């Protein structure tokens, strides 16, 4: 699995997310985009920060799939009006197996 950092932001002055992180994570995993295995989100003052764990043939494809899910959720306005995707990029967890002891890929 690849890990993808996502950062969703609410409009200025709206006071942050209206729904819980677990509920939103569940929405990610039930979206009709293959490969999203797990999502871990943390609420912050103006949105959510978190990591999506995605199975894909490559890291770039995992980023694209994650972005698709985020944009689908934003378009559905489930989070509310004015929310936007600040960041969707590969996370530090995607290190080479060479970093790990006993692994040589």
């Amino acid at each position, binding site marked *: *699995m*690849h*890990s993808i*950092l996502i*950062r969703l932001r609410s409009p200025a002055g709206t006071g942050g997310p209206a729904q819980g992180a677990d509920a939103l994570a569940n929405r990610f995993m039930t979206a009709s985009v293959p490969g999203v*295995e*797990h999502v*871990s989100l*943390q609420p*912050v*003052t*103006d949105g959510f*920060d*978190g*990591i999506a*764990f995605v*199975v*894909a*043939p490559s*890291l770039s494809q995992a980023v694209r799939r994650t972005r698709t899910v985020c944009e689908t959720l934003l378009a559905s306005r489930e989070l509310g009006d004015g929310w936007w995707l600040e*960041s969707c*990029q*590969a*996370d*530090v*967890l*995607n*290190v*080479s*197996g060479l*970093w*790990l*002891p006993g*692994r040589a*890929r």
Partner: protein
Amino acid sequence: MLEVLGLDARASRVYEVMVSQPEWTVADIAAHLAVAPDEVRDALDTLARKSLLRPAEGHPERLRAINPAIGLSALLAGQEAELAEQRAQIARTRQEAARLASRWTATHVPHGSVELLEDEVELRRRQEELTARVRLEVLSFLPGGAQSADVLAVEREAAEGCLARGVRIREAFTTSAMNDAATSAHTDWMARAGAEVRLAPALPTRLVVWDSHTALVPAEPGPGLRAGLLLTAPGIVTALVALFEAVWAGAEPVHEEAPHDRSADPQDLQLVRFLRSGLTDEAMSRQLGVSVRTTRRMLAGLYARLGARCRFEAGYEAARRGWL
């Protein structure tokens, strides 16, 4: 290994599989690790919290991503900082220990040691070591009348080595020991070989002193020496040497003491003649064509060979040996 980064064992295992098998799903990982899928999800939550995200500078309420190119070094940075602090703490502790050790050393003048030699074999071995290393003199009391054949054999062997190296030997026996033919023959041999042997009506203890710095006494009262105490404390050894000298002064030579058989070399004889003439160190150095410092070193060597501690004693000893 990743536990050192603050990851628990389960999260570490999940992480390893995750990056080495990127095509595997949560279910695949769970099956591989023989755990429930929810446990894998919990581990993924742990990994996500661990940071992989960090508070943004100037905005602690926000999180920022770490460049993936940095990889685990970002995770290691925190551990390295803790390690550096621990190293600094160890260094401070080591410095403090060194300071305390230094203070302890400054306030505790070494007073020598006491070594208990309980085993006869070990006792014999240590005596042989000390006798082999002695440079100037061996003093000994052999109380208790007749000496056993073993003791006499050891004494003779040690004496042969010492006398061959020019080491002075002074041995005191009890007068009654001369009633024993073997002991009497031993004292005769010792005297002929160059040792000084005297007889006293009584001797306080078995005693051996090497070069006035190491003494051996019995661990238990009595004439025998089955277990011994080896003493190097200067105060104790000095007292034992004084005891020896007091007894020695009142003892009678077993035979007329023969001159020491060590022959003097020309330099020793020249120095002795200078001493007899009453020359100062400076005058000697001019005569010898060497520095005063060298002259004093030569005199110190002469004193050591004679077993003397001053000019007077050196003169006496040189005269006794027939060097004048």
